[in-house]
């Protein structure tokens, strides 16, 4: 079975370590991610101006192209893409006047009214694969890996597009449990990382990320798991700034959830592209004996 899949621009350049392990993992789980032909930018940031329809064109065009493929569901990996696609979809469903304007401007030959369902890969794992099936497919439980699930904003806010309970999300914790890891709950897991604010005020990055990182550390996390390239970027830069400013501040590895998935499914570290990660994740994995396990299995299996 295959699922229409929307990668997003960053996943093709800076965040290949988010995409490649996901594609390999889903293939291993028997749900092939089928990249949408001719996809374009998701719009990056959902425009809040009421009459700013031009910035809805990009996400809606993607959704129309999914419909043209005869597909009814679109899977995303990047939390930001999920957010802008899902909100644009909601607009097309609910606002008849704007829908007509957009349809006639976009001019793709067919009309669209929100028929495609936009989902995040975590939802596919929860609702279609199921945590139990997933845990059965795990070859290398990530035992004793204390990871704090970090949601950020865009998976959960606004409420209408949330993939889980807005106030008390559990999807990432359940995911980590299925992989055999030890999730570390912490109160700042849905606090904003600073998002694009750090472009206009780059000096504020340490202050945005300090509460998140300190809270995760003080609750015993050894690493953070993220779903969004922008969160990853901000948290990584924030850590560096904090380490510079404040002696003794410990930087921790940041993982994309898909890297942990691939690792637990036994797909090996190469597909995870740890070289693109911040905060030396491989040394933590070695310390936890999680890389050597995979390597030894690959030797037994006769794979390089």
């Amino acid at each position, binding site marked *: 079975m295959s699922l229409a899949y929307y*990668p997003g*621009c960053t996943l*093709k*350049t800076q965040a290949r370590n988010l995409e490649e392990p996901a594609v390999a993992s889903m293939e291993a789980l028997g749900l092939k991610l089928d990249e949408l032909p*001719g*996809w*374009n*930018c998701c719009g990056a940031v959902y425009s809040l101006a009421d009459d700013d329809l*031009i*910035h809805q*064109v*990009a996400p809606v*065009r993607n959704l129309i192209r999914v419909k043209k493929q005869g597909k009814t569901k679109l899977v995303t990996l990047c939390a930001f893409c999920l957010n802008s696609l899902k909100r644009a979809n909601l607009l097309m469903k609910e606002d008849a006047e704007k829908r007509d304007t957009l349809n006639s*401007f*976009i*001019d793709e030959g067919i009309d669209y009214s929100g028929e495609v369902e936009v989902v995040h890969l975590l939802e596919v794992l929860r609702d279609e694969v199921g945590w139990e099936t997933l845990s059965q497919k795990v070859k290398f439980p990530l035992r004793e890996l204390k990871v704090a699930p970090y949601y950020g904003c865009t998976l959960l806010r606004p409420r209408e597009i949330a993939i889980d309970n807005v106030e008390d999300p559990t999807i990432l914790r359940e995911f980590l449990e299925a992989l055999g890891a030890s999730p570390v709950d912490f109160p700042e897991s849905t606090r904003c990382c600073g998002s694009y604010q750090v472009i206009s005020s780059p000096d504020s990055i340490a202050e945005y990320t300090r509460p998140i990182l300190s809270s995760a550390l003080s609750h015993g996390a050894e690493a953070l798991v993220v779903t969004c390239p922008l969160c990853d970027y901000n948290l990584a830069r924030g850590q560096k700034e904090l380490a510079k400013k404040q002696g003794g501040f410990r930087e921790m590895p940041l993982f994309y959830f898909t890297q942990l998935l691939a690792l637990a499914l036994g797909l090996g570290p190469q597909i995870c592209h740890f070289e693109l990660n911040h905060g030396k994740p491989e040394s933590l994995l070695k310390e936890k004996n999680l890389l050597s396990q995979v390597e030894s299995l690959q030797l037994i299996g006769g794979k390089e």
Partner: protein
Amino acid sequence: MSAKQTKKKPAATTVKHTAKKPAGTAVKEERQVAARLIPIYIMGKRYEVPEGLTIMKAMEYAGYILIRGCGCRGGTCGACGTFYRKPGDYKLQVALACQKTVEPNMYIAQIPFFPANRAMYDFAGLTAAPEEVFKLYPEMFRCVACNSCTKACPQGIEVMDAVSALKQGNIAGAAQLSFDCIQCGLCTSRCFGELAQYHMFQLARRIYAARIVPRAEHLAGMVKAVNEGKYDRSLDELKQAKEDELKKLYQEREVEPMAAGEDWKPKDTRYL
């Protein structure tokens, strides 16, 4: 199109073709050919021109002398990008003036050149890293996927998809999608985000050809062999051969069959 309009008045009902004869034959042949005249509008002014002419020829017929914006007249140089509209249809149409034949009531405007800044770069210093292209053309991220560029392409290129490919770091994809680009600039003239598509694509194709497509190793080997004089003797023999001998060699040469496989070899392998 830089054009001068002469005072020549077009014929009202017939077309006059004056066939030029070589010097010495003083006969002036004048043929009267009946051709239906149709109205077109050049820069808003009505002209009656014979149907079947290209837009470019129709403009010349109407009295314009084209000294720019009329390069190859064969549909490949990109100098004669043209916009037109027809009454009753809000859609803007595009064409190359040298390719498109006139239709009744076309309102025509030439866009022989459209300003777009080309980034300065030292090609030798470029690798195939997408970030280098992002730095040279940062405005590509202003694209809102309106698709006006695609609609404006007389070559039928999926221009917006090529921009998307480039934004995704897919230089090879952008190069392949834009392969037919003749750099007429019509996409750029319609761009909401003020991108310089045709320059961006040219850079993508350069990088693709020089850094991404695998080098043909056998070509380097052959160039080396030629430089080392492998064929000098046989070339000298040919140079000294008499005409009859050359003709015989040419007529009796062994030709590779149309459906030859990759392992095909000529019977005479001396030159391999």
